[in-house]
């Protein structure tokens, strides 16, 4: 699909045949060394100990705990993706309608959390949301509630902490797509008698969908691999797959089984990624507007 107003680009050329292709050699070497090589080792560990075996994968499916942890991870990720969209969409929309200066300010505000480590931010949430945290102290002090609310060590705490960290990954894909939408289309709809609501729902919303899908995929995939926030802000029901991987690799030193857990997670996430990008046209994320 090509949207009106989107920059017209030449068809992709075969870069590897040009001199520019040489530039790619270094990143390719880097990629092979630090990514592909360890990944191969990981695959090896998961299938060999020392002879070929499927035992490590069999164990994963035999033991309900690991699948339950995977369900927990999926549940958290879906919640966080949904909440990020609900919060991020209006925010990104606001950024497209305000002046350039205000927009820059908003971008900076969304980015500020990036400058602090996830660990520090997670501890900050503990101070704010805890039993004797700011919110509970104020509410109890004003007599609004008798007992402190359980805001952390449960799903709510994990949702708040993770949405805070992942929101920028929703907002920026949305913004990049929304900023490209030709606003004269909305104006045209209005002049032809559409109400503001109709114009939004029938013109703006469909045109912004590539941003929605890109943002959702990005947030979901990052959420699946999240470790610190669920471990610190979650309770019993939020023991995630990554927590188990850590337990197996660091405490039990069972690297073969740990590798099979890692490969399993990678396969699921990889499959989802391919699925999403085929169905939803994820290439828009990189701005490649193929027809």
């Amino acid at each position, binding site marked *: 699909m090509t949207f009106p107003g989107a920059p017209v680009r030449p068809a992709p050329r075969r870069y590897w045949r040009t001199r520019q292709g040489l530039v790619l050699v270094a990143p390719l070497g880097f990629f092979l060394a630090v990514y592909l090589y360890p990944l191969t080792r990981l695959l090896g560990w998961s299938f060999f100990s020392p002879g070929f075996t499927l035992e490590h994968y069999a164990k994963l499916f035999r033991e309900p705990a690991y699948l339950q942890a995977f369900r927990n991870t999926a549940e958290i990720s879906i919640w966080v993706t949904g909440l990020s969209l609900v919060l991020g969409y209006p925010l990104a929309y606001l950024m497209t309608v305000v002046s350039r200066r205000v927009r820059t300010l908003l971008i900076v505000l969304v980015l500020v959390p990036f400058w602090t480590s996830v660990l520090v931010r997670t501890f900050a949430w503990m101070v704010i949301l805890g039993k004797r945290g700011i919110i509970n102290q104020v509410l109890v002090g004003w007599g609004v509630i008798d007992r402190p609310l359980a805001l952390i060590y449960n799903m709510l705490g994990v949702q708040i902490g993770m949405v805070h960290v992942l929101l920028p990954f929703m907002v920026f894909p949305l913004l990049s797509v929304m*900023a490209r939408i030709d606003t004269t289309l909305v104006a045209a709809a209005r002049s032809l008698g559409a109400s503001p609501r109709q114009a939004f729902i029938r013109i703006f919303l469909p045109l912004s969908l590539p941003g929605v899908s890109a943002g959702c995929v990005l947030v979901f995939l990052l959420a699946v691999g999240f470790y610190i926030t669920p471990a610190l802000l979650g309770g019993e029901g939020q*023991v995630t797959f990554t927590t188990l991987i850590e337990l197996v690799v660091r405490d039990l030193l069972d690297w073969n089984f740990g590798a099979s857990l890692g490969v399993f997670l990678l396969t699921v996430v990889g499959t989802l990624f391919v699925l999403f990008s085929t169905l939803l046209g994820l290439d828009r994320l990189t701005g490649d507007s193929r027809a």
Partner: protein
Amino acid sequence: MSDQTLSTRRHFVRIVSAAGATAAIGPFFHARPAKADKGELVVVSWGGSWAKSLREVMFTPFEKETGYKVRDDGPPEAAKLKAMIQSGSVTWDILDTDLPAIQTMVKEGLLDPIDYSKLDKAKLDHIPKTLQSSHAVGHKIYSFNIVYNTKTFPVGKHPRSWAEVWDGEKFKGGRSFNFRGGIAPQLEIALLADGVPMDKLYPIDVERAWRSTDRLRPLVTKWYQSHAEAIQLVTAGEVDIACTIGPRGIYAKRSGAPIDVDYNQGKLGSDYWCLVKGAKNPEVALQFINFALDGKRQAGMVKENPYGASNSTAFDFLTPQEAKDLTTAPDNIKRQFWISEDWWGKVGPDGKNENQKQKERFAAWMLKK
């Protein structure tokens, strides 16, 4: 329009790549590992105030006395050591770590045995025999204890036994127990709560211990991941009682936190010195361990960090005031029990030791709805 669009997009790509790069590089951003060359010894401990005291009390005097240089590194992760040995680039000589980690490392063949003939007999005579095992010699005694918030439970009105910690009616408030961090699950403590006397804990009645742990479960607000987290949870009043390292509680209390420790029915264990397999300087490493087992030097360590010294002569160098709070003080140690290394290290027919088996069961138990 198109200009702006492009800049927004580039902006976005830049932002995302920067964020991604930060996230990706993050875990590898350790300080450059200290390298063990000839004439140099690398001692690996868990950091914090303990590591600071090690430098002052042990490393610097050892350097002065022997001329060898001591470098510190940390943390002594078993997984990191395994990776070092597998890749053939071992940079560590001595580890300072706890029993479950050591048992797993011994099983994996990551440690060398200790040659006790190279250590002073006079020193070893004052160190409990149970702390002198084939691959590790104990130096720092700690215990899992009842650590409580003194705002919730003023001293004297606090839970004094594990049965009382299990009693959610009489002692209202949240509990925190360890999910990771040393021996977990706390099977012995669950048995004590269920009425088993302290001298009848081993061999552990595993099923009874798990049934008791089932009863604890609804009282637990947070299963913690590290002992530092547990102390923080109690200090902040997020939970009212934790089962965690008592000496850490004493340390927090000394710095003014509303926290106290009851040593009754505590589970005693030790951190040990052990030798990395293929360490470049095993002779010097043993010389250091011998140096560090000295009672006076151990006393210097526990003055700052209220753990117990494994060498009983350490008490000769402590004032009664300094000695009173230690987990090994006569009044405290007699109310506690020693963890059984044999029981937890016992390897079953499946090639797993009890520690690994119970940890796996713990994870499964935690995920059972």
